[in-house]
């Protein structure tokens, strides 16, 4: 693992990352649509130094794969800026995935593909991670209104993570 160095090059392996932004532009142009307005953040990212070892840290998760628990209302596919609080003691067999922009087959086979709940519980049980927040948070991706994400969804999730008093948050976008 090294910063900004791709896996080994050469051979038949398609070493380059998939150019999603370029392919979306080409797909939209082919359909006669205006280009999709991807978010571009030019400011330097905010930075909070990590001060505690992982084994003493409380971890939160925000995942965008459209995960809900049985009994909760499912997400819609159209600019849904709500979120779900998933108790971290949930039975992972009760978790569901719904989304319009990725193949759900594997996530529905094993939710850990997009929501690493059993993975993280195993780290907590072994003491690798100090604690998990009482709830992890899930939402949709593919929200076309950047304004609503920036002004509504993201601040709400930040407030919840702050109230949960977590030290670290792992984002799992899809």
């Amino acid at each position, binding site marked *: 693992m090294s910063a900004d160095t791709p896996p080994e090059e050469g051979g038949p392996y*398609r070493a380059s990352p998939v150019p999603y932004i370029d392919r979306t532009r080409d797909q939209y142009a082919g359909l006669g649509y205006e280009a999709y307005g991807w978010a571009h*953040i030019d400011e330097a*990212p905010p930075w909070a130094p990590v001060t505690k070892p992982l084994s003493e840290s409380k971890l939160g998760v925000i995942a965008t794969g459209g995960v809900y628990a049985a*009994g909760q209302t499912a997400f819609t596919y159209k600019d849904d800026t709500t979120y779900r609080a998933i108790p971290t003691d949930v039975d992972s067999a009760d978790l569901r995935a*719904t989304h*319009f922009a990725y193949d759900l087959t594997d996530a529905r086979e094993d939710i850990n*593909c997009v929501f690493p709940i*059993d993975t993280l519980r195993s780290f907590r049980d072994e003491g690798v991670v100090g604690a998990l927040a009482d709830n992890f948070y899930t939402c949709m991706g593919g929200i076309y209104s950047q304004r609503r994400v920036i002004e509504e969804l993201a601040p709400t999730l930040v407030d919840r993570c702050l109230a949960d008093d977590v030290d*670290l948050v792992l984002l799992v976008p899809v």
Partner: protein
Amino acid sequence: MSLSSARDITRAVNPPRAAYLDYPLGHTSGRPNRPELNRAIVGDALRAFHELTEPGTMFHLPYRWSEEDHWKDRVMRPSPKGNGRTDETQDDRVERFADPQYQTEDDAAEAAGTHEGEECLVCAGIDY
């Protein structure tokens, strides 16, 4: 820490810390029924909390989806002849339905029972 499978999109939004996993979308934190592999992936991402010391750095995780990764050729490029499509530009995207999209009909019934007679503030995302 953003564990991401879309390198260009992640670069564009420039999170403070990122770990890039070169897998197809829908597998940001691993593969189905592969707990040890998924522990390796997520464990690397967690260790990167401490290893990344420069804002805006992205780690490349050393996992490969398949030997030749042919899946990359097909992303957002529907087969010209597959699934009844006649050309590459035909729209194969899923419609963006505006009502809740349950995985199963049982889920819809269970949610209706849970929420009978009142709006669920958690599901509405306004419980704070």
